[in-house]
């Protein structure tokens, strides 16, 4: 009985939440996909490349006019995990535009197979994935990403043709993210 009440409360809150977001079709779609996602359907196999800072810079140094949205995150970072769904959804919706989502996990390398990959798979976070395994040199690479970044995550950088166009420390709302992308496409 207790369980049934719990379910009822959960269902009620979810519908309230749905209503809340009803005007935003994208978020609505996201809710739906979360609600219908079962282990059987989530067959995304994320590939996460482990790299050092210099290699990450090479990845970003592409002269192809594609806007790279680079998000620094970790599985343990609550605000990161909270903003990732609308990052993935926003970039999915812009599939036909020259813009790409690059997710850089700052999790420990030893947590790659036990936490990072299962998390990305479960959440179905389709993106280009990296794990920056450079913990001993944070004091070198963090200021190179942005001189004002003190290392708190989440943080998001926009790169095009190897040039950093923008850097935001802290969470970005869906509308902020869209506005940032639009102004640099």
């Amino acid at each position, binding site marked *: 009985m207790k*369980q049934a009440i*719990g*379910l009822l*409360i*959960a*269902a009620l*809150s*979810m519908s*309230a*939440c749905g*209503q*809340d977001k*009803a*005007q*935003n079709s994208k978020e609505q779609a996201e*809710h739906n996909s*979360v*609600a219908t*996602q*079962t*282990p059987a359907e989530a067959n995304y196999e994320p590939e996460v490349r482990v790299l050092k800072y210099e290699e990450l810079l090479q990845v970003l140094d592409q002269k192809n006019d594609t806007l790279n949205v680079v998000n*620094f995150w*970790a599985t*343990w*970072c*609550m*605000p990161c995990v*909270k*903003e990732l769904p609308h990052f993935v959804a926003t970039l999915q919706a812009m599939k036909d535009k020259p813009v790409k989502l690059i997710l850089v996990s*700052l999790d*420990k390398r030893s947590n790659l197979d036990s936490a990072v990959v299962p998390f990305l798979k479960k959440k179905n976070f389709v993106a280009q994935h990296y794990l920056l395994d450079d*913990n*001993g*040199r*944070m*004091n070198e690479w*963090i*200021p190179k990403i942005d001189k004002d*970044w*003190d*290392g*708190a*995550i*989440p943080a998001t950088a926009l790169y095009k043709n190897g040039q950093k166009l923008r850097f935001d*420390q*802290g*969470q*970005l*709302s*869906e*509308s*902020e993210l869209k*506005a940032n992308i639009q102004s640099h496409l």
Partner: protein
Amino acid sequence: MKQLLIGAGLLSLAFTACNDVNSSKGQEEGTTTATDTTANKKEASAPVSLPEGYKVGDEAMDFKLKNIDDKEVSLAQFTEAKGYIVIFTCNHCPYAKAYEGRIKDLDKKYKALGYPVIAINPNDPTLQPEDSYAAMKTNAKEKGFTFPYLFDEKQEVYPVYGATKTPHVYLLQKENGKLIVKYIGAIDDNYEKPAEVKAKYVATAVDALLAGKQVTETKTVAVGCSIKDKRTQKS
């Protein structure tokens, strides 16, 4: 059965997610109804910006915060101290956890030399329940903290200092009755593998002060958990 369980799990996930969103929104927007169109506009607006915080060389303020023994602690109480290793830290953050032992070591070594560790949890427990005052007490007891572990319950101290993450160190030195910031940043250069630490930033800085020398590396950065505050939280 499996399906039911999964279903229940997903529902509860959705529930938590929504709950989070609503609670932080409620704080920022007061009584705005959820379906109101202004709600979305508000979401897009920038959060309250906090003061910029201290730079090395600035005079730092004292504070009075509740310790895990229910007593209020302020820096002025430590009349013998030459300075303080103020560390904004918390229970939940993997970085903070990784550094607990090293924070104890700093206190053990430098308290006797006049630089005690003063740890402060700046997080809002409604956003991060593991960082509640009760959980602080438990954590300090379990880990055998030898230093004050204070709760910035009103979140009034960390923004003045300019801390943005946990752990975040501010090394202060008493100079003519003032508290001067001498170092801001990380504890050392490798949170993950203490054995591979090459630069002990805080220890080196305190050693310099003890020797009457200038701190050479006054500012460092490291990845950390952002401080949980409804004013800077976005839905």
